[in-house]
């Protein structure tokens, strides 16, 4: 009797979650579907964002996430490799780093935004300008490279934690097998451990991309623009981004009512894009797993 009650409760909890998800997605699709068209995806916003499309924001989001991945992967994966494979598990340093990573994961994203502005834009950017450009303003301003760096910092804990888990999941026998054949630690890492952990490491990328693509707060001070007539082509260009575009339309538009259909469609596109990026990573992971199973 008690058992049945518990099963009922847990099932109900699950249903509530599913229902909430369905309502959110349904609502977005229902109100957004009228605006969806090829033109909407491929054109620039016009008429104070009450008409036209959102292509610059889509482009900016993809470029941002791409740059972020390039920045976060080496840093995160190398950190995890150090923690798992080189440092002694009982050392104080490892514990401090692990605690720091956990704390980093708990910092609110707006704090990352302010940190990005203070550190990357003002400190690093100005420093670069002063050093290479004689103080002229090139990098000391919000730009896609600084936004990507800030997002990379935000997603770093996700990558470190998932990579660590993936490395830990490689059986000890296999790690020892490589060493017993005379492999150096580096050879063992490159040829045995990392390839075996690669599907797990890609899971980290998937999670980081999902997290990064949806964040607005870290990029609003570090590079995202209200409206731009051009696409970002250089690392120090500003850019439009879907999440920020939604925020702008909902709060800063001259005519909030008129932007509503576009708003819904934009959210829909953002969700679809995140989903697509995820699918891509999941596809890559599945291919890798298959390759290992077949042994090529």
């Amino acid at each position: 009797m008690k058992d049945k009650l518990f099963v009922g409760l847990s099932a109900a909890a699950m249903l509530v979650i599913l229902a909430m998800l369905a309502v959110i997605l349904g609502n977005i699709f229902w109100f957004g579907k009228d605006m969806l068209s090829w033109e909407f995806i491929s054109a620039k916003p016009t008429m104070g964002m009450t008409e036209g499309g959102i292509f610059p924001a889509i482009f900016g989001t993809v470029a941002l996430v791409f740059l972020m991945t390039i920045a976060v992967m080496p840093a995160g994966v190398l950190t995890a490799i150090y923690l798992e494979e080189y440092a002694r598990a009982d050392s104080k340093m490892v514990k401090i780093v692990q605690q720091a990573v956990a704390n980093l994961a708990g910092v609110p994203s707006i704090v990352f935004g302010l940190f990005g502005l203070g550190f990357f834009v003002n400190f690093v950017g100005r420093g670069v300008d002063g050093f290479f450009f004689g103080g002229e303003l090139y990098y000391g301003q919000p730009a896609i490279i600084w936004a990507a760096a800030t997002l990379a910092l935000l997603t770093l804990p996700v990558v470190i934690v998932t990579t660590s888990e993936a490395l830990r999941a490689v059986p000890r026998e296999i790690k020892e097998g490589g060493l017993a054949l005379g492999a150096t630690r580096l050879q063992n890492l490159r040829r045995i451990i990392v390839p075996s952990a690669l599907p797990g490491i890609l899971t980290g990328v998937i999670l980081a991309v999902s997290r990064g693509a949806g964040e607005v707060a870290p990029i609003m001070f570090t590079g995202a623009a209200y409206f731009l007539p051009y696409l970002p082509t250089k690392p120090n260009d500003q850019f439009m981004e879907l999440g920020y575009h939604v925020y702008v339309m909902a709060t800063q538009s001259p005519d909030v009512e008129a932007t509503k259909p576009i708003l819904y469609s934009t959210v829909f596109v953002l969700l679809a894009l995140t989903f697509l990026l995820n699918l891509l990573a999941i596809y890559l992971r599945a291919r890798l797993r298959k390759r290992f199973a077949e042994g090529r």
Partner: protein
Amino acid sequence: MELVNEEIETVTKLPQFRLDAIGRPEVAAAEKEKIRVEKFSFWYGKTKALDSITSRVYEHRITAYIGPSGCGKSTFLRCLNRMNDLIPHTRWEGKIFLEEEEISRPKPDFTVLRRKVGMVFQKSNPFPKSIFENVAFGLRIAGESNMEKLSASVEESLKQAALWEEVKNKLERSALALSGGQQQRLCIARALAVHPEVLLLDEPCSQLDPISTAKIEELLLDLKSRYTIVLVTHNMQQAARVSDYTGFFLLGQLVEFDDTRKLFTNPSDKRTEDYITGRFG
């Protein structure tokens, strides 16, 4: 009363003076020492795992070490190719020599040492790669990239490990698709591919069925002419079947080491006798 006490003392001292394979001049004259272990003790943290082991491994012979679980025989084996260095907080005293080279010195070249002293583990551990790449791994990390040489070596090693006939048409397939016994023979082939002088086997058959076990035992007897083999097992019948010399470990001590036939038919130590007759362990 006094006399009785004296007798007991003599009895407990006996093992130290008995004439085992190391101490017997005719054995020492007939065999060539490959590995020499001198008063070797080993600690994990504060736990003493090996207590003053003195033993010999003779060239082109199979030396088996038997004993109950936790007696230190695997620790001993892993000292011979320094696999224990992966574990933090270990230390040791005494010396181990591979011919003239001291294995137990502070910083040996692990790559060179482990190529000379190959190892096969209790749990078969093929890499998630093809059969070919598993066997070629040792050569590849040594810098060999000539496909002809690799292919020749893979074939030779698989033949030595009596696996060639079973896998020659599927070398590109995943090693993980092989059966447990085949995987273990693949691991032997992989170890042989780098032409080791000594092959260490850590309970290689403990997870295999009797038929696979028989195949591996047969294989070891074949390999004896080319390699020096050290086998750790808790299967006493296995030690009796394949080995030339046997050492019996108990609680971190090498209680007895002798010619296999002698140790199993006429052990010098009461504890060995109890163990091989199944009175404990």
